[in-house]
């Protein structure tokens, strides 16, 4: 699916309805113990879908950030994978060693967020630089919380991307959960870096889709990054939810009630299956915590979780090997 189409085609709309339902059922399902609740802003799903997906590691790259699972689903992740990850199962994509709500699968073009807001803008700027260096038709998309603009890290990443005209699209979710100070309107900040900017509120979905598609086109043409500010829907209800999208699809995209019901049933069945399957998935294996943290094996220092050291004078003759150093 290319981002080169200016409007949403009917089958993409159906896919999006499907992913929206998946997301809603994930949201509605019993959240695994300890997992943070999440609300899916359907606009994130629409925007992610405007990028070019593939599963061979050669498509676009997306960091869903806190807008997961929407963009994750949009890039081809399954509800079961998402549940495994959130549920810290041993079968989880990151083997339950890492958290958040998104993970890395570079072949599918997914990269998990980590670190303070702003970090992923730096990382995706570098990935975008790599695309440009190789002259590839690829771009990088990162969803950040609006507060990312408060961090110096975001500015450094943005400045770097701007200076190198890297094919990067930054979507800033401008909702605020608490009274924290910090100025900076998306427009003028983008102007400070000489990059393109767009602000989206509740505008029609083809417009959102087209905003990213245009940004993507600019990006791969070497015309540099675009910053997209996504405004909150309202004071208390910041996200635009799936219902709104379905209502639009019915009214504007020629999708029928019957089709929606069919899609909904399929999504519901799939997510139900994932939940029931999840309960049978094994927990993480403690020994997995001891996997090397380096790519080539770096032995754990002695006596980390084994028997105490046994100095040589006790195990006559074999001083350094008398205990398990791994």
């Amino acid at each position, binding site marked *: 699916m290319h981002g080169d189409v200016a409007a949403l085609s009917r089958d993409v709309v159906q896919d999006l309805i499907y992913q929206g339902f998946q997301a809603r059922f994930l949201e509605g399902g019993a959240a695994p113990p300890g997992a943070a609740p999440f609300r899916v802003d359907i606009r994130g799903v629409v925007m992610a879908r405007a990028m070019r997906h593939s599963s061979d590691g050669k498509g676009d790259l997306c960091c869903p950030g806190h807008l997961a699972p929407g963009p994750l689903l949009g890039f081809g992740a399954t509800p079961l994978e998402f549940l495994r990850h959130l549920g810290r199962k041993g079968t989880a994509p990151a083997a*339950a060693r890492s*958290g958040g709500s998104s993970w890395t699968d570079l072949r599918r073009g997914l990269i998990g967020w980590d670190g*303070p807001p702003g970090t992923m803008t730096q990382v995706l700027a570098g990935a975008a630089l790599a695309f440009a260096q190789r002259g590839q038709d690829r771009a990088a998309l990162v969803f950040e919380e609006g507060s990312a603009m408060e961090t*110096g890290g975001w500015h450094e990443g943005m400045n770097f991307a701007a200076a190198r005209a890297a094919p990067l699209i930054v979507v800033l979710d401008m909702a605020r959960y608490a*009274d924290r100070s*910090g100025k900076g309107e998306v427009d003028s900040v983008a102007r400070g870096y000489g990059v393109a900017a767009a602000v989206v509120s509740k505008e029609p979905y083809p417009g959102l889709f087209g905003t990213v598609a245009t940004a993507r086109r600019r990006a791969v043409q070497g015309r540099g990054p675009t910053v997209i500010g996504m405004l909150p829907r309202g004071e208390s209800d910041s996200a635009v939810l799936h219902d709104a999208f379905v209502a639009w699809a019915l009214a504007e995209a020629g999708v029928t009630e019957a089709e929606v019901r069919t899609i909904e049933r399929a999504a519901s069945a799939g997510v139900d299956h994932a939940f029931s399957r999840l309960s049978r998935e094994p927990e993480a294996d403690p020994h997995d*915590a001891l996997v090397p943290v380096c790519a080539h094996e770096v032995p754990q220092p002695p006596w980390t979780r084994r028997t105490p050291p046994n100095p040589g004078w006790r195990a006559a003759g074999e001083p350094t090997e008398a205990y398990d150093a791994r």
Partner: protein
Amino acid sequence: MPAELPSQVTRTREGRPATFLEAIAEALWEEMERDSSVFLMGEDIGAYGGAFKVTRGFLEHFGQSRVIDTPISEGGFTGAAAGAAHMGLRPVVEMQFMDFISPAYDVLTNYIATSLYRGAGPLPMVVRGPVGGGKRGGPFHSQNVEMAFFHTPGLKIVYPSTAADAKGLLKSAIRDDNPVIFEEHKGLYRAPHCREMLPADDHVVPLGRARVAMEGDDITIVTYGLMVHRSLEAAAELARDRIRVEVIDLRTLLPLDEDAIVASVQKTGKLLIVHEDTRTGGIAGEIAIRINERAFEWLDGPILRVTAIDSPVPFSGELEDYFLPSVADVVTAGRYLVNY
């Protein structure tokens, strides 16, 4: 007036026991009342009352100029705190989770820690916040941060293990003329066994002095923070085998109370260090070489350590429990050392 006070700062006034978290809140409140130059900065500490609600009600009482909600920019507001300290204020900076101190690493080590040395005067300021694992927070909400700063001359590092110490040490830290990193284990915040009556008068505990949490003469365990409690549990188990453990609670990590450790090792001849932080490059190393320098002749066995394993803090509960040092680990090591 008392009716208006936020509940988490009234326990001692009302003659009731306080949790670790309440002890922290009381220290902040009392120091702000005592000294108008003390003020707070941090993410969501005002309107929202703080991620752990330590500062709930502070904004209403002390006003916007002394309870400052900051942007997400730990480096920037820590640097700004330094500027305010230059001008005679005494900032107390909250890191929402202490893991988030890492963007302030540069300004803390290069600007703040060196200020007195560079002739720019002392910088009285505290950077405090929750640390530690066991809460399923994963790699970026569970860290212990002492070793990021332990190597930096000019900083002090405090890490209390009891509610009374938390209050008394935080008050000292705020009154200290040096920048102090203050670590609060979130596993202690609301732990019922940490709830205790605090001294009703102005309760101040000096920085730089360890505390003997349990006396014994068979083996010394040096530890701090949540691991004091784990070590005491282990000591109780060892006591059943008539092994008498001395548990030293460091309380202040920098400067290290070397004399207290040396004195205990001279008594027991055996030293086990227990820290929750990961192994390689942990504080156990510095303690080991200091004992070599000052009390080698007294050692009747190797200096050993029980620590977390060398890995980021795992997200899954199973993995995290395995990653963290357990009471059983301490018991095994203690028994081994005693029989050495």
